[in-house]
């Protein structure tokens, strides 16, 4: 199937009215890496098809449907507003082993030293350690609250940026066999551009570096994506690189700290027009 063939079928594909063989051929075509407008044609057709549902009067589902959704999502449990970021599995395992080793060591100590003086000292040490642990927990919680506040301010700023009438949303698509995607919100007039992605996973020991490309010039390093909270990564494009409208934005996967030139580009988006 060629791109022209697919685009002739995009409407029927979006309606899901293709017969099974054609449906399979169209799906296979979409998996190809190079396209001349097929994803864009599909997005337009899907949006048009979805709008057709608006011809129908709304039908409110009964409240029991909502209750079933709440029960199945686990949202009927008390809400946990503060969530410490999950530690990587390897770190958790290391921590578990360290705690087990410490417990064994303490038990050994307990068996060898039974005098009241040592017990009292051990209790004092334990109390001190407990206080230190509590202080660490408190510091971690305060850091988490600060992160939440910063993330909330970032989110507010992001919504305002999206809402600005002269902001543009630029999709960053995977290249070179990579997966994932991101969206850039670009406002050249305000000198602000933010890249966000809910489809990239943090890579241990590596950073997702942002790049701005002007015309035929070399990519210029523009910052990093940060996985500050939850599964969504957010990164600011260096405003100095937005003095003139960029031709393209890219994300590359680099050793921690980044590189002056990209070595492994994973996502690319062109700012048309």
């Amino acid at each position: 199937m060629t791109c022209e063939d697919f685009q002739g079928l995009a409407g029927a594909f979006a309606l899901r009215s293709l017969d099974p063989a054609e449906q399979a051929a169209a799906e296979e075509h979409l998996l190809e890496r190079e396209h001349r407008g097929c994803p864009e044609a599909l997005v337009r057709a899907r949006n048009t098809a979805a709008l057709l549902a608006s011809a129908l009067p709304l039908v409110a589902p009964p409240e029991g449907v909502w209750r079933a959704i709440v029960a199945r999502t686990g949202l009927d449990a008390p809400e946990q507003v503060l969530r410490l970021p999950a530690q990587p599995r390897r770190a958790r395992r290391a921590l578990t082993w360290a705690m087990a080793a410490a417990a064994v060591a303490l038990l050994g100590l307990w068996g060898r030293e039974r005098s009241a003086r040592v017990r009292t000292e051990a209790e004092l040490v334990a109390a001190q350690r407990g206080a230190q642990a509590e202080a660490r927990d408190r510091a971690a919680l305060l850091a988490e609250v600060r992160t939440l506040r910063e993330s909330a301010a970032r989110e507010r700023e992001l919504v305002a940026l999206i809402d600005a009438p002269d902001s543009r949303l630029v999709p960053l698509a995977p290249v070179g066999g990579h997966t994932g995607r991101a969206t850039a919100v670009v406002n050249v007039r305000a000198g602000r551009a933010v890249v966000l992605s809910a489809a990239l996973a943090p890579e241990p020991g590596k950073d997702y570096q942002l790049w701005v490309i002007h015309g035929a010039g070399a990519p210029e390093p523009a910052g990093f994506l940060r996985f500050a909270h939850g599964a969504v990564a957010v990164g600011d494009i260096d405003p100095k690189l937005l003095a003139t409208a960029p031709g393209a934005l890219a994300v590359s996967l680099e050793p921690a700290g980044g590189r002056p030139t990209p070595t492994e580009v994973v996502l690319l988006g062109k700012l048309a027009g």
Partner: protein
Amino acid sequence: MRENMVARGMFALAWSLLVAVAWGRGPGGEAVDRRQALRALYDLCSGKVMAIALRLLGDRAEAEDVVQETFLELWRRTADYDPTRASPATWAVVIGRSRALDRLRARSSAARVAMAQAAEPVDADPGPQPVEVREDQRRVREALSVLPPEQREVIELAYFEGLVQSEIAARTGQPLGTVKTRVRLAMEKLELALGGAG
């Protein structure tokens, strides 16, 4: 221009709701109960998902199951959402209609005919509808009404009855090639009339 501003405003609202569902925080920066955020998204989209599922399946209990499956899928797949491709409401309708079609097509032909005959009529007077819903209805109905009757027919059979093109050909007695051409032309005209904006 004004339409564009309204669309951006709605987009920002819906996006912030999705962010709130995923992260547990609202657009104002406050910590948000994720249940409330999902409820807001549900209030925004569930009536439309229920309407298309009921129209396709003709069975209220099954349509309610589809609404439930749709929001569970939205909940699980928030990270897959791409704001440059569609609004969350469009995403919900696409998922909901897809789940309804899966159920419809799992029925045997005989069961489909029997269910269609016994289909529960959609309430002709659904009561007061929000202004933006009435406006969307007006635009879509107008866009459908200006299509040539034979093109409108294939769209109605494909979208609202869930028929594939060979079934439409059999139902209308038209050659398959004619049906394909009509579907393509109708969708191109609708895209032009409705802007293809999600």
